[in-house]
């Protein structure tokens, strides 16, 4: 496959883009606390607020990767602390499923991260994001949209050499 690593985007130096899904009650509030406490962390995450980590549809995660995210972070309340009782456990199950799926899809399970961060743990928001940015930077860009475009181009290029000239296989089946 050609073009395995896409050219670095933007101003030359590549830096990961991470979509974060934070639950309203714990992790989003913790991120607010990190802000109020003026903790400094990498600017690579973009957060989407949901009421509960249980609202994270596996499709959201896949969509984020498909649209060009290099990593996806999901933040929920600690086990037993869910504002809605058990939404975080529902997320945990989907997380296990997603990890297997992402591995099979060649995206890699390590690009998806689930963290329990309580409303008091602003410090943890900072450390988790910094750590994740570091790890995804090591993994390099995923660039699923770029890859898809490459595959499309490849198929288009190969198309003429496949279709017309080949004799049909029908002859082999006829004499039976």
């Amino acid at each position, binding site marked *: 496959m050609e073009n395995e690593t896409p050219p670095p985007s933007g101003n030359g130096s590549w830096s990961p883009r991470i979509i974060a899904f934070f639950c309203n009650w714990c992790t989003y*509030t913790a991120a*607010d606390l990190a802000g109020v406490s003026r903790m400094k962390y990498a600017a690579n995450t973009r*957060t989407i607020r949901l*009421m509960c980590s249980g609202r994270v549809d596996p499709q*959201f995660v896949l969509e984020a990767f498909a649209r060009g*995210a290099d990593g996806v972070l999901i933040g929920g309340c600690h086990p037993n602390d869910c504002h809605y009782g058990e939404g975080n456990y529902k997320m945990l199950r*989907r997380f296990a499923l997603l990890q297997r799926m992402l591995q099979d899809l060649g995206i890699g399970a390590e690009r998806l991260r689930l963290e329990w961060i309580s409303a008091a743990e602003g410090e943890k928001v900072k450390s988790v994001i910094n750590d994740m940015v570091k790890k995804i930077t090591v993994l390099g860009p995923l660039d699923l949209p770029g890859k898809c475009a490459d595959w499309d181009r490849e198929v288009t290029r190969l198309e003429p050499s496949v279709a017309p000239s080949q004799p049909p296989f029908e002859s082999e089946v006829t004499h039976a």
Partner: protein
Amino acid sequence: MYTPKKHEPVRIGFYICHCGTNIAGMVDVQAVAKYVAALPNVVLSRDYKYMCSDPGQEMIVQDIIEHRLNRIVVAACSPLLHEHTFREATRRGGLNPFFFQMVNIREHDSWVHTDRQLATRKAMALSRAAIQRVPLHKPLEVKKVSINPNVLIVGGGIAGIHAALVLANAGKQVYLVERDPTIGGHMAKFDKTFPTLDCAMCVLSPKMAAAGSHPNITLWSYSEVVKVDGYVGNFKVTVRRKPRYVLEDLCTGCQECVEACIYKEPKFRDEFNLGLGKRKPVFLPFPQAIPPVVLIDPETCIELKTGKCKKTCVEACGDRKAIDFKQKEELREITVGTIIVATGFQIFDARRTPYYGYGIYPNVYNALEVERLVNASGPTGGEIVLRNGQVPKKVAIIHCVGSRDENSNRWCSRVCCLYSLKLAHLIHEHTQAEIYNFYIDIRTPGKSMEEFYCRIAEEGINLIRGRVADVYPDPSDGATGRLIVQAEDTMLDCIMKVPVDMVVLSVGLEPHPDTEKIRRLFNKSCSSEGWFLERHPKLAPVSTFTDGIFLAGCCQGPKDIPDSVAQAGAAAAEAFSLIDKGNIELEPNTAFVVEAECSGCKSCIPLCPYTAISLLADKKKAYINEALCKGCGTCVAACPSGSIVQNLFEDAEIFNEIDGLLEPTLV
């Protein structure tokens, strides 16, 4: 109210707030406004110094009218802070308030990043996500829930008592639940209170009595909350009433049974006096206890243990027939609209700092024990005598035991400096002993506190700046129990070894060991130290993240009596404002089923923690009871056919957000 018609073009107004320099200092707000102006559907894009100010809000209102805007996006602080403000402005402009979307570029951007270019690009991406999302917004109606006017107050210390009285005096029905046999909490154990040195019980007992006899207060002492269901306005609470083996309505508090008990002398550890005194199996915790009802301890009562007592107590009780050895614990269910949690603190267990010898040398006391020793109704009748009966001539008071210490608790417990000074004064007053206070820093903030410190310092106590390293028996005389306190005097730069007769440890305040249990019960958050977390450290100090549940007193963090009382009043006012409004508006973020798309697979039904989803028997379709739905969205994420929709968080809205956030030009 104006609702845009379905095919009317979307006209978005975008506003980015400078927040002084809070946002503008790190984000190029003009560049963001310019970027957003060029996005589809955006009619107007402005930056403004303070969007939350009146002129800022008025600008939104006027623009909606003038420019026929039908969607509003504001990029400013956290939606948890000002979403409501801007929804209101949107409404005042004549739009449904839910045609508004907020972008958090302060807490999640300008405050946490250091590179202006990156922060600006992030602000652009976040704004773009909102611009792409908001065209899909639908007009929604807020759901109103009526508030049950009854209030539950958990914890009968000074905070709980004060909150109960405030609400009860306003005519509200209050359930005051206390775990111990009597209300009063820690304050009931104190002798005098700083800085006025007025007697703790003298100011507390009238309030206790008022709470005990108030027609609007149902006082359940010796009881614990075991279950809380429901939500703001309508909590179903189960309270376990532990058996006292004495019927509360029949007992007159005469204590003749105590007198008549088969044990002639008090023999058992007296919990109220921290084990410094003794009590009988049947006892009143202290003379002013409320309710003034005795109780029988099943661990020590012969009748309850063996059933073979002469029951002289029953005889003494006579016609009152208040003693009931067959009493069982009871579970009571109540419905309340709001809850105030005032569960207090525990003192630091000084055995965790073994170098100070607590629990090893009999002459080492913690401060609460000394409060009991000083107290006229205490085990020694107010005389400060050591366990060997001697009056101490030299006393060391060690500050910051279990506070400001990396090895135990890192926080300052706030009250110890002041109560240490108070104890220094009281011990000196009672015994004329020479007092040494060993401190790290003297911290006496607050009204009249510094003056108090100066007054005590001038009384001639020895204030030594230095953390005590060790307390050990005086090797020169082993019999008297004299101790040596070794510390570095950091003012004189020398090591001091002070022989003393008594050591008082000024122990810090800690969260209760079962904080975790209480927290789960009420679905609250805790700080990492274990104190209950307030909704906002400055602007919502008694609210919690659970609507309708409020905090008061030391369960939220160490504080003194005036602050606990002030907080209790605030919590009562918060509860009161909910009750008097009569209803609360809930986010309309509930989910509903699009029947045409539901296959009736039932995957969603077991996922709902509120059993809000059922299967319509005739149609074979899922149905969500909106009144029960709390809007978590778990069923929405799980529906295989995508036929469940969550208001405010529709799939399409989230997908548009994802798309906007990952716009390739904003890498």
